[in-house]
């Protein structure tokens, strides 16, 4: 009986893996460039910041280097206890502004002051009482003016053409929300305006590079094809403003990004049946990933808690209000195979010690898992290349030797994360585990605008 359940679960697992390997492989075309639109739609970028003094300037660098005119960027200082606000004041020459008034539709913590930059009038800073990330985003929604809203993490840096790509994606009236491509910042070097991918980095970062590429280029792309996107990453997402107001903004929870995605999906399946959520692989941002096991553990625990929170919160909405396909992907793939199966899997070695009879079965399943893992990573690299991510030949060699080892080492960490996160969700739902920032920067802006050097800024303005 145990054997049969195992085999049935494994068979379902195999089916999902096959979908992820082959759907993007056949659906993604070789030439994958978007055509730039003349007409720029208005885009507001919201950047909630809580104690981000180490990384906030990197984020700002990305903003000022955007190849886009019709945008505004709003930093929301969520009651930071560090120098975040002072750094922004210092580099942006902030002055209080009275030209902005809130929409007064979504409640949030009290606003202390709204500033505008003298240097870059497109950049605003809202200083408010601490209320958490969702609260900060809601405050930002209240003050923004443009029709499309981008939410960006303070540790993420927008690629210069990312807004053009989003502008193009929202040209389709049916698109009401879009997730961007999140790349690992540590996986690139050289100039931010022309970044070069590199694999010359530590194992823990390599593991996350492969994981992000697979999660976005294979999984998110496939989920989009199945109209089943369940999370638009908080690091880089885009929404139509009216939708954010319609669903009363973000909900205060550990995973506000998955939460809002699911609520928008529910709206799509029940009210706006023509509309859709998409993944936009051409709109890229670079995010800083954890470099230590402890930081990685904290991040993944947070993700798993966020996931469990959505499972519990929306348990009654599946199938009838989320539609069939999304429910299948969420409940079967993510919950049954991703979370519940992790618990029995860790007992397999123990079972094998006491019951050697089925060791060939265990070995067989392990072989198939290993084989599927390698082919999925292979597919990831092929699809990434078609999306324009080309590694140097030496890097491909490094990747080829890394992946087989990674599958049987780093990837097993995932089990520990899922199990600990699930248990900790039920023990302490409220604890948030705020991420610690490192502030490393493996790229430079030597050809772009340099905030720290006012002379360069001046020169660039003159040239532009």
């Amino acid at each position: 009986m145990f054997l049969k359940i195992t085999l049935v679960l494994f068979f379902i697992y195999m089916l999902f893996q096959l979908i992820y390997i082959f759907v993007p492989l056949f659906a993604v075309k070789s030439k994958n460039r978007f055509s730039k639109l003349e007409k720029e739609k208005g885009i507001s970028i919201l950047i909630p910041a809580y104690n981000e003094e180490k990384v906030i300037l990197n984020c700002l660098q990305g903003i000022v280097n955007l190849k886009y005119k019709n945008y505004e960027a709003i930093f929301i200082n969520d009651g930071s206890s560090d120098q975040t606000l002072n750094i922004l004041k210092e580099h942006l020459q902030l002055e209080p502004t009275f030209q902005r008034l809130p929409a007064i539709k979504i409640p949030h913590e009290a606003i202390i002051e709204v500033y505008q930059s003298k240097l870059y009038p497109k950049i605003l800073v809202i200083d408010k009482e601490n209320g958490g990330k969702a609260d900060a985003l809601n405050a930002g929604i209240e003050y923004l003016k443009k029709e499309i809203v981008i939410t960006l993490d303070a540790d993420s840096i927008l690629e210069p053409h990312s807004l053009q790509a989003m502008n193009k994606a929202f040209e389709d009236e049916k698109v009401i929300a879009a997730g961007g491509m999140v790349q690992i910042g540590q996986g690139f070097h050289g100039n931010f305006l022309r970044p070069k991918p590199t694999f010359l980095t530590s194992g823990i970062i390599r593991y996350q590079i492969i994981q992000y590429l697979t999660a976005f280029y294979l999984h998110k792309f496939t989920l989009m094809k199945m109209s089943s996107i369940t999370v638009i990453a908080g690091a880089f997402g885009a929404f139509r403003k009216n939708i954010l107001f319609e669903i009363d903004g973000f909900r205060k929870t550990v995973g506000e990004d998955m939460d809002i995605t699911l609520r928008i999906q529910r709206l799509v399946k029940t009210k706006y049946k023509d509309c859709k959520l998409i993944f936009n692989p051409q709109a890229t941002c670079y995010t800083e990933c954890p470099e230590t096991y402890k930081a990685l553990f904290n991040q993944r625990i947070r993700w798993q808690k966020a996931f469990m929170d959505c499972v519990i919160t929306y348990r009654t909405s599946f199938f009838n209000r989320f539609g069939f396909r999304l429910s299948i992907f969420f409940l079967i793939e993510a919950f049954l195979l991703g979370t519940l199966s992790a618990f029995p899997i860790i007992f397999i070695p123990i079972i094998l010690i006491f019951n050697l009879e089925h060791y060939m079965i265990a070995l067989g399943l392990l072989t198939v898992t290993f084989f599927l893992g390698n082919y999925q990573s292979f597919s990831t690299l092929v699809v990434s290349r078609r999306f324009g991510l080309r590694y140097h030949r030496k890097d491909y060699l490094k990747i080829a030797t890394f992946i087989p080892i990674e599958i049987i080492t780093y990837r097993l960490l995932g089990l520990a994360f899922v199990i600990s996160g699930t248990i900790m969700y039920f023990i302490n739902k409220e604890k948030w585990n705020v991420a610690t920032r490192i502030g490393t920067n493996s790229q430079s802006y030597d050809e772009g605008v340099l905030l720290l050097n006012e002379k360069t800024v001046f020169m660039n303005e003159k040239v532009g």
Partner: protein
Amino acid sequence: MKRIVFNMTFVVSFLLIFSIIVKVYYADFAEALSQEPHFYPRDKSLPLQSCQGWTDVVRDFQVDDGQGADEVPVLMYHRVIDEEDLAENHFDEENRLHSTILLKESFNDQMELLREHNFTTLTSKELKLFLKGELEVPKNSIVLTFDDGSKDNYVETYPILKENGLTALNFIITGAITSKDSKYEANAYQYLSESEIINSCDVFEFQSHTYNYHKRTFNYVPYLIAKSKEDIKYDLEASIVNLDQRNRAFAYPYGGYNEETIDVLKELEFEMAYTVVPEIARPGIHLYEIPRIEIFPEDSLEDFKRKIRLN
């Protein structure tokens, strides 16, 4: 074009490696899946002690000295099938019914004959005492035995025995007992289920016919001869557990045994064992070599009368 060629190469290499993996592990998976539901668990006991109590009681037959039987025929049956249910696989190459199959009609006639002549069916314990010369039994005493415990024993045989007030020994291969009840199909090889054994234990006295050693090697040597003493003991121990520690009698599959087999039986405290030697049982014979007379499908009622010494 280049993309299509690449994709095809990708798919072909995927399928190739995958089929190699399937080929390597196929046998292991097939075995694991087919074996699992096949054997009755070694450590599971049927609740037989409570319903088999009647086999532990030795009746007082009130036979006057010298008036009792001096020999008792022990009959051996396997399957009993209704003529209507006969299928192709019940016959051998020469189109004769397999020797282990008796038609229900013949069996019914035989049992009615026993009742008409007031035959007494003995339990194994009573037979043992008779063979040891410690018990007088009536002249028309007989022992009925069934080997292998196929499902028809419950469907066809049990009602006939019960109707005629007779009892019988049933030697079962305990590893083949099924937990679930399935619909009776005469042409399939079906074994007694747990509930069928419990429901028929007022008529059948269930004893061991091994756990899973009703087998022969490739050159037809019965397992009880071919296998080591330890292996045989390990197998029989499971059958005793399955039978709720009831280990009074044993029947040798294919009638195959040797000195070592008898030693194992004694170590496991079996009290007697039945062979397939077609002779009549008399007091003084070896208790681990009790002969049995097989009843064949072609036997007429006259043949049957001769076999049971009914003149």
